[in-house]
């Protein structure tokens, strides 16, 4: 079992995330964990993007944060302890999955309120550029639903005006919780919103980890070189419910069709086994 995320292939990283979240889902069903938010089906985005970052680059994200933390290299032990609310979690068990942070791996901030991560990421990018004065970049993951929120717009506007080194990664799963995009998205693609801010954007298949990774490298390179915000819109599928303890408005057929696009479709169970034993060992200490 490799000790750091950097020693795994892209597919192995996605498998690790899937294995962690599947295990946590079991705990949710058994009442041993809260109503967690999982990224099942969206793992290619966090893995593809974070693999294109330097260790010193920063990540800010939203409430669906476990995949991002793992992909950015947060060790599993403090992460799982935090998600389970234990005092030796990475934030003393006080933050939980939706407010946790691990600055040692530059996993800086995640927040439950939709949209908040965008202006916070802009402020962080401001400090990278104007206070620390390094050439690191900040990646801000957000959902498509966040683009209906004022905080997204205020944050993107601030980043555009201040010309900040910020990569916005839109995980477009076409859902806002249990609400379909016809209720909040007036444009065909989220990236069209970037035109209003004079910003460059790219759109990729968010379920193809190689494609995400290649385009993320391009986008991050552009952000680092030109010190201005860029968006990478990743078209993806959330295969699980919005959060545990909640129903799903989609029927079985619809989810089965979406699952044809699962980035881990065809992955074998055996490939996950080494991760599962490691996860079981950690969780065994906390449950």
């Amino acid at each position, binding site marked *: 079992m490799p000790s750091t995320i950097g020693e795994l292939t892209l597919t192995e990283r996605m498998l690790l995330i899937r294995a962690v979240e599947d295990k946590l889902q079991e705990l949710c069903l058994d009442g041993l964990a809260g109503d967690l938010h999982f990224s099942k089906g969206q793992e290619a985005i966090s893995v593809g993007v974070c693999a294109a970052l330097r260790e010193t680059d920063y990540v800010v994200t939203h409430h669906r944060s476990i995949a991002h933390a793992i992909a950015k290299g947060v060790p599993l032990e403090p992460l799982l302890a935090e998600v389970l609310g234990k005092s030796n979690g990475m934030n003393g068990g006080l933050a939980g999955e939706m407010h946790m942070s691990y600055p040692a791996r530059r996993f800086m901030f995640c927040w439950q*309120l939709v949209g908040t991560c965008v*202006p916070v990421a802009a402020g962080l990018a401001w400090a990278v550029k104007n206070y*620390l004065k390094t050439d690191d970049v900040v990646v801000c993951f957000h959902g498509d639903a966040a683009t209906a929120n004022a905080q997204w717009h205020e944050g993107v506007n601030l980043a555009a005006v201040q010309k900040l080194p910020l990569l916005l990664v839109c995980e477009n799963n076409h859902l806002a919780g249990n609400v379909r995009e016809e209720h909040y998205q007036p444009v065909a693609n989220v990236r069209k919103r970037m035109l209003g801010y004079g910003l460059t954007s790219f759109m990729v298949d968010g379920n193809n980890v190689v494609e995400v990774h290649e385009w993320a490298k391009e986008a991050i390179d552009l952000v680092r070189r030109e010190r201005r915000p860029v968006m990478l819109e990743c078209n993806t599928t959330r295969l699980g419910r919005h959060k545990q303890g909640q129903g799903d408005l989609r029927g079985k057929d619809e989810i089965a069709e979406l699952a044809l696009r699962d980035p881990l479709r065809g992955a074998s169970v055996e490939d996950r086994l080494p991760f599962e034993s490691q996860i079981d060992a950690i969780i065994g200490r906390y449950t």
Partner: protein
Amino acid sequence: MQLLEQPRPVPFQRNHKIRDAISFAIYQMMERDPSIHLFGEGCGVKVHYDAPNIERDFSDRVHTLPISEDGNVNFAVGASLLGVKPVVDIITADFLYRAMDSICNTAAKLNFVRPDQPPSTIVIRAEFLTGGPTTGQRPEALFCHIPGLDVVIPSTPRDAHGLMRNALETPGVTLFFEDREIRDDLLKETDCRIGGRLAVGYALERRNGNDKPDCTVVTYGLMRQVTEEVLGSTLNIDLIDLRSIYPIDWMAIRGSVRRSGKLLVIEPDVQYGGVGAEIAATIAEGQPGVRIKRLGGRRATIPATADQHRRMIPSVEEIVHAVNNW
């Protein structure tokens, strides 16, 4: 130390002594601490007119942001994650409603969810004005409900300076109000003399009388000046200026009430559900038998003109009547 007179490019009609004291504290702290940066809508313009010394010496640390109060506070939170100590100017207190999400949901919770990391220092500034339904409100009591926030309302230049120094020297999130209705011409010379850092949570006690005062008057901000003018120095009362409404200096209030047996709270904010209610209830619970009265603003929308607005906060007659009739 006397407050430095600021050179003023434009003559201001408004009261400015408390503002100058705040600017002076910020200037002193910026000299010592390179991590302090000023952010806000029109921040550069404001510094240009109000604090030209800051503009002259720290122009690269004054940052004008758009009119996006909520986003601006979140932006400051992000900068604080890398060690910046932001002073965010919201300008008018009414605009705090725009930023309540970022103040109450983000900034106030930030240090709680990062117990093992260096705590952020964030100061959020806003001023009380008159001007109408959405330019004269006093939303300070709302913020006292939110754990993670200190709420500071100085009533003299000396306190404003000391408390701003403290806000910038001490980790945590401070909501710092500036009461622009406090009149410069009525400030005492001693109140304008600048001192050192002043820890938050300590009231200023002015004892006029002997060991057995006729009553205890607890107030803050504008009402402290009004009350002091009304009551003068002849009456045998204890006047307590809270200076911060969270945390509240309970020891000062309890000690005085123990001697006087009578408590009058005078607040400029809406009385209903306000700071006075909290003080009255706490004293009533802890010291039964104390006679308690409250005076405060009406729970009514503020009219446009300044003289109409003044009729909505406790009047001279009401204060005199309350003090003299138990």
